[in-house]
């Protein structure tokens, strides 16, 4: 058993529904996740799978009129679902820090970056202006910004993408939060900068012993940084395991398709696997049966569970539905067919 204090976030039966033309549709459908101290939990999936929905539900930043969140998000036994705003403002920035995708858009263009970081400190500490300034300089040093004193006075447009993201990270870690949510933190950055930012995140996590939720669609990022991986499809978690298992022994068809669509070798002639179709939109999402079934039509319906559940197939490895047992790629089937034809032709 885990010690209670090691469990930072316990998300139970989370449903987040958005209102579209008067009706609510679940964008996150019965999500169960836990985040422990010293852990990087990656949430992976295509766009529109509900990854960011989980992030905004945890940090309570959603349009309250058009969003309905039910279930439990326990942070140290405090339920964040339905928490009143003034209490939530104490948690945000102080206990839970957030890093966003586009570092230029996530900084106020009219404010000095140093002041934007200091703003977090203003609301969560008793520091005076001088102490806040000193702390910001310290944070800038920590996130590897050159000439922190000069950087303090800069405006976002004067910084490069990598530096901006470092400012955003400095903002998120200003109060040593226990939970850091990084929503596609490297997507908008150059490949060379991506690695630096990921290293920085790992470094911060090691020092502060916080837990990080890393939302990404980049499996390379996952392989490099994550400890635990949750694969999401159409609002549901379809597979969850530690990072080694996911990459060495993936089971769910969606996970396997995702991994298969990654370039595997230096072979220039290699054809990348393409997952047919797209993630169904929120309104058209199938609410019954296996949601991924439509994108693997060559798998017979009988292979899917009628109401797919999460099963623990081995300790710590969870998979939704039973279709993984008979799943194979379409190309394999073609290969088989060709083989059969070749044999029968002879």
């Amino acid at each position, binding site marked *: 058993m885990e010690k209670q204090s090691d469990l930072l976030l316990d998300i139970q039966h989370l449903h987040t529904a958005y209102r579209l033309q008067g009706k609510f549709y679940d964008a996150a459908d019965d999500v169960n996740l836990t985040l422990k101290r010293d852990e990087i939990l990656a949430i992976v999936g295509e766009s529109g799978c509900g990854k960011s929905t989980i992030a905004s539900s945890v940090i309570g930043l959603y349009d309250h009129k058009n969003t309905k969140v039910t279930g439990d998000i326990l942070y140290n036994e405090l339920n964040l679902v339905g928490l009143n705003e003034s209490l939530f403002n104490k948690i945000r920035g102080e206990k839970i820090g957030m890093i966003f995708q586009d570092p230029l858009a996530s900084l*106020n*263009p009219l404010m000095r970056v140093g002041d*934007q970081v200091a703003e*977090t400190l203003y609301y969560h500490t008793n520091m005076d202006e001088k102490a806040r300034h000193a702390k910001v300089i310290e944070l800038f040093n920590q996130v590897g910004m050159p000439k922190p004193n000069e950087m303090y006075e800069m*405006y976002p*447009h004067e910084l490069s993408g990598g530096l901006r993201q470092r400012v955003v990270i400095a903002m998120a870690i200003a109060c040593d939060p226990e939970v850091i949510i990084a929503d596609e933190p490297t997507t908008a950055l150059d490949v060379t900068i991506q690695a630096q930012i990921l290293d920085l995140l790992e470094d911060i996590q090691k020092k502060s012993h916080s837990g990080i939720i890393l939302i990404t669609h980049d499996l390379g990022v996952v392989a490099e940084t994550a400890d635990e991986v949750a694969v999401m499809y159409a609002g549901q978690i379809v597979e969850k395991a530690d990072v080694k298992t996911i990459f060495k022994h993936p089971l769910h068809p969606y996970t396997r398709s995702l991994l298969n669509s990654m370039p595997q070798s230096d072979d220039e002639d290699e054809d990348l696997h393409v997952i047919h179709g797209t993630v169904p939109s929120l309104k058209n999402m199938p609410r019954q049966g296996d949601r991924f079934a439509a994108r693997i039509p060559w798998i017979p319906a009988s292979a899917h569970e009628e109401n797919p559940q999460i099963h623990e197939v081995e300790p710590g490895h969870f998979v939704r539905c039973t279709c993984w047992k008979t799943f194979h790629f379409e190309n394999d089937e073609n290969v088989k067919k060709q083989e059969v034809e070749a044999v029968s032709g002879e």
Partner: protein
Amino acid sequence: MWKTVLRRLLIMIPQLIILSLLVFLLAKMMPGDPFSGSINPNTDPKQIDALRRAAGLYDPWYVQYGRWVGNLLHGDLGTSYIQHVPVSSLIADRAVNTFWLSLLTTILTYSIAIPLGITAGRHQDQWQDTSVRIFNYITLAIPGFVFYILGLWLFGFTLGWFPISGSVSANASGFWGILGSRLYHMILPAILYALITTTFTVQYLRTGIIDNKVEDYVRTARSKGVPENVVFHKHILRNSLLPIAAFLGNTITGLLSGSMIIETVFSYPGMGKLFIDSIGQRDYTTLTALILIFGILTLIGNLLSDIIMSIIDPRIRIQ
């Protein structure tokens, strides 16, 4: 900062030259000259001819232009054909009236428009927003002169709350008496003028707030635990005021030169009324001078806007 201003001032020099050339050439193309009005059947054409030659009207246009600009630089705008007084003194008297009317109008415009825009933006699609939008469509749709005449008729004639013409009453005396009387004469035209002018400010502010509300940096501010009202004033509102600040300079000088209709309706002795009167009386020297002044005001308005923008938006400053 100062480099930006200096650079903008340097850009203004060619603009001023082009403006003065245009005004001069257009004035030259207008029919008639200072002596056309003095001709009657008994006038000896030779005498008129001599007068024209003495006034330099037979010189090449560039010589005349040079003389005109030279006079301008010495503050000499010529003499009014009709009133036979120096145009500069004619305009100076009126400019003071227009200045005060414009100042009051500007203050009223922003004190009406900014709260309305904020209300509409904050309560998007709620009844507050709908009311502001209806008000906006009405003030946008009604032509100024109809609105002014209705206001004049209702509050001036029918209710008798405000004076219906002039800038100061004849029997006002003492500093405070005259100041009070001036204000009293300005209030109704200023309010009516301001109401018509608010439309764009309200609309820009409303749209700005609605757009900025969903910007990523606002979400970032919220994720830091910044209370919602601070998020609004410090992050959303400041960014939403940018387009309004961009028009601030033009609005101020625009009111100075754009008050022709309101001044005419209220018989308010300002530059706008002078302009309309000069057109009616073919007072070309006055007209030319006024057009030149209005042009310069527009240039100054642009300059002011640029300076204001460079103060509040760091992205615009030139390194």
